[in-house]
């Protein structure tokens, strides 16, 4: 079959709702875009362990510590599902990691903000994971089989992340005035970065028809952001916290909240590498990779030795 015919068959398959699998024919642009998106997603899960890992040793009690450990371990798992799904597109994990370490590949802007207090752990679970779920449930309906399957698995697990975060915020909000202030401060700092992490507004990031048609992207950034806001504002109201947006209003007709202007300059600065923690996050990943190299080498040598012994025996 020539390329035009294959493209036609490929698009018809997607339009019918069928999934594209690794060995199926796909246009180069589809493969490239997916590698970019999926690896960025995988890197975000891995880098995302850093801000939360920061609080494991200082969790306020054993219950919270066990929960946080389990959550951070989930993020590692999510990173692995996603690297594995990305590898099905014909790229090696070592190459993907090299792209992260050299700064060629990006990860979510949100993880370049610091976790200053315990309440930030609540805010991350509630807001950051909440926003991620909005995005990921949309992606689970996409066209690439391995990515969708990873998304389904991840969404199931994220729901625990989301709820444990809200629970932390709720407890703080119901605590002493100092504790409530801590929760409000975390909400104030994480709100805007959380709604920005869903990506530039539609007029700055025109969704190419092609990516929508190929079901690489399922919904526009603004649509996902609006849904996140509409679900989250009542949750804040419920525990007596205030969304730090004086322009936020409920539109009675649509049931949607209108929000104030988003500081996109900040978003693009963070993406460019000028956020509060970019250098720190990247260094932590590069160091971990370097310091772990001997473990990978030793395990390889041990496996080789054992398989030789088996042959002799």
């Amino acid at each position, binding site marked *: 079959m020539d390329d035009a015919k294959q493209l036609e068959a490929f698009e018809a398959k997607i339009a019918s709702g069928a999934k594209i*699998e690794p*060995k*199926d*024919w796909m246009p180069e642009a589809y493969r490239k875009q997916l590698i970019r998106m999926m690896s960025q997603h995988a890197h975000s899960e891995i880098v995302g362990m850093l801000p939360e890992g920061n609080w494991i040793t200082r969790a306020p009690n054993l219950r919270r510590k066990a929960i946080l450990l*389990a959550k951070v*371990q*989930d993020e590692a*798992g999510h990173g*692995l*599902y996603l690297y*594995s799904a990305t*590898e099905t597109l014909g790229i*090696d*994990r*070592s190459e993907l*990691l090299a792209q992260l370490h050299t700064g060629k590949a990006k990860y979510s802007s949100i993880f370049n903000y610091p976790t200053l207090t315990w309440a930030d752990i609540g805010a991350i679970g509630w807001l950051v994971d909440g926003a991620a779920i909005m995005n990921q449930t949309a992606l689970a309906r996409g066209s690439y089989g391995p990515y969708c*399957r*990873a998304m389904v698995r991840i969404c199931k*697990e994220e729901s625990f992340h989301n709820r444990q975060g809200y629970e932390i915020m709720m407890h703080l909000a119901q605590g002493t005035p100092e504790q409530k202030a801590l929760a409000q401060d975390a909400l104030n700092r994480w709100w805007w970065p959380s709604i920005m992490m869903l990506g530039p507004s539609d007029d700055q990031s025109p969704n190419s028809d092609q990516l929508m048609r190929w079901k690489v992207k399922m919904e526009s950034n603004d649509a996902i952001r609006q849904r996140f806001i509409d679900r989250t504002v009542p949750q804040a109201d419920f525990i007596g916290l205030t969304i730090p947006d004086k322009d936020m209003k409920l539109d009675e007709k649509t049931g949607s909240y209108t929000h104030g202007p988003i500081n996109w300059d900040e978003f693009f600065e963070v993406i460019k590498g000028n956020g509060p923690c970019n250098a720190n996050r990247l260094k932590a990943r590069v160091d971990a990779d370097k310091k772990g*190299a001997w473990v*990978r*080498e030793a*395990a*390889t040598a*041990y*496996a080789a030795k*054992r*398989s030789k012994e088996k042959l002799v025996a």
Partner: protein
Amino acid sequence: MTDSQWPVWEVFVQANPGISHKHVGNVHAADAEMAIQNARDVYTRRSEGISIWVVPANNISASSPEDQGAFFEPSNDKPYRHPTFYKIPEGVKYL
């Protein structure tokens, strides 16, 4: 030495006694033992399984998607292999 990230192992998990192992994904590991441990940590953190198989990914051969039509054709034109192919009069029991 190049940093290999270790070979890929495909992972199969049996969720409950009495049912088949099902493919769930893969892991990187230096050897089979490590692959099983990694698979446990990556794919069964919430009691999803009671048994794990791992197979080196390069030992798996697969049918090719392009030949799907021709390859599975022999079974498509044999509806008589299905019980619903046969018309049995109403009133006949246990068939």
